[in-house]
């Protein structure tokens, strides 16, 4: 098949952008010797930080799923005054600088605030805790899930739900048996995006909880304290573990198609 000049030009530009993305990543991944990767794997601080990143990202995804799914469904199915405003509120965490998110969270539930004191009185600590990290990660990750699943709900014809209702399904059952199964793949993609965003978050986390350290905070700390050589192995491990999880999930979900 003959390739048109237009596609050749597109291909040249594509190669440029792909190289731009992959070259620094490849350099970083290939830079540390295997021995330093093994050392990093044996370093308790590193494994703990990566474990905390995954654990908090998982919680953030679960919370986004639990509270984001109903919101996405309302936005997909209902027209109401202020809907555009609500949609903009959902998008806010995507567009504002992430340290600002950390500051916003501290302003709402930090020490000395009414909400912060209420939470403290019931034993919930936000600043410098895993709970604080989960709060921040939910804030930054939820919009990715909500938008993905909202678009999926919009793609399911309302008539399918209506038919389900006439066949004896309540609104909840019509949602659970028809709408959600038809949106499940997009919901999972949204959750993956939400988790990916959460794992990679640094700016907001560092404001709310420098300790306990997530992987991205540890990478930053090692970079500023010891330089590039000490931060690279942790970064490579984080990328490898995260990528393996996401690829495995993608394979599992696509094999169920």
């Amino acid at each position: 098949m003959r390739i048109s000049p237009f596609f050749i030009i597109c291909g040249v530009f594509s190669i440029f952008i792909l190289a731009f993305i992959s070259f620094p990543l490849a350099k970083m991944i290939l830079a540390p010797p295997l021995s330093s990767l093994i050392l990093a794997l044996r370093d308790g601080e590193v494994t703990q930080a990566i474990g905390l990143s995954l654990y908090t990202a998982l919680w953030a995804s679960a919370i986004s799923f639990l509270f984001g799914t109903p919101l996405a469904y309302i936005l997909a199915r209902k027209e109401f005054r202020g809907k555009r405003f609500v949609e903009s509120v959902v998008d806010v965490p995507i567009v504002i600088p992430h340290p600002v998110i950390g500051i916003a969270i501290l302003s709402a539930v930090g020490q000395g605030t009414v909400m912060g004191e209420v939470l403290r009185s019931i034993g919930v600590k936000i600043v410098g805790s895993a709970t604080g990290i989960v709060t921040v990660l939910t804030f930054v990750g939820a919009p990715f899930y909500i938008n993905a699943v909202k678009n999926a709900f919009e793609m399911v014809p309302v008539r399918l739900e209506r038919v389900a209702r006439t066949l004896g399904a309540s609104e909840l059952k019509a949602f659970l048996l028809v709408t959600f199964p038809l949106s499940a793949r997009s919901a999972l993609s949204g959750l993956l995006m939400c988790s990916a965003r959460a794992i990679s978050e640094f700016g907001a986390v560092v404001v709310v909880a420098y300790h306990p350290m997530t992987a991205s905070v540890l990478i930053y700390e090692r970079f500023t304290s010891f330089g590039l050589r000490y931060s690279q192995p942790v970064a490579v491990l984080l990328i490898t573990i995260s990528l393996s999880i996401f690829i495995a999930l993608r394979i599992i979900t696509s094999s169920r198609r």
Partner: protein
Amino acid sequence: MIEIKDLVVEFDGFSLGPLSLKIGKGEFFIILGPTGAGKTVLLETIAGLYRPSKGQILIEGEDLTSLPPERRGIGIVYQDYSLFPHLTARRNIEFGLRLKGMPKGERERRIQELAQLLGIGHLLDRYPPTLSGGEGQRVALARALAPRPRLLLLDEHLSALDPKIRERLAGELKRINRETGVTFIMVTHEIKEALVLGDRVALIRDGRIEQVGGPEETVASFLGQ
């Protein structure tokens, strides 16, 4: 007997009614009207998918007006079939039976009964996207009939099919109506369907019923305007 009394539905600037109708048990009743006359809204209101602002809907004297769709015992088949694409034809037909809590053996018997009635036995393990228009319509009909509805609503049921299949399915529809004894209300803008299928025909225009009568006289009136 299905009785619609002074029904008014209003939403998004559209107004249906006030309209009243009486439809006999087992009757094949046609609502004939042009696009945008409010035919589908009327069907969906009868099914409980829209709440009327005034009026009543009664079946055998029981007031259904405030009942949710799942408690009305009314089936609906849309023009686009609206089969659940993630379920096989069998699971589509079984959907309402499972919700009723019917035991497995009984469900299977009912599926086979409907498969025989509609000639879809060979399609039961197929997914909706692999079915042709006519096959999809039959499966949708079987799904709606499965929970033994008191009333079946057909929204432009045959319009999406090519003329040959449409003619054959029209004959089958009439047969199924007779054999099951279920009351059918079908909305259409096709005069021929009204003449072939209807025991009686109602003419709807701009959200109001203009005339109810035998197929010939109502269609003549429709054409005369």
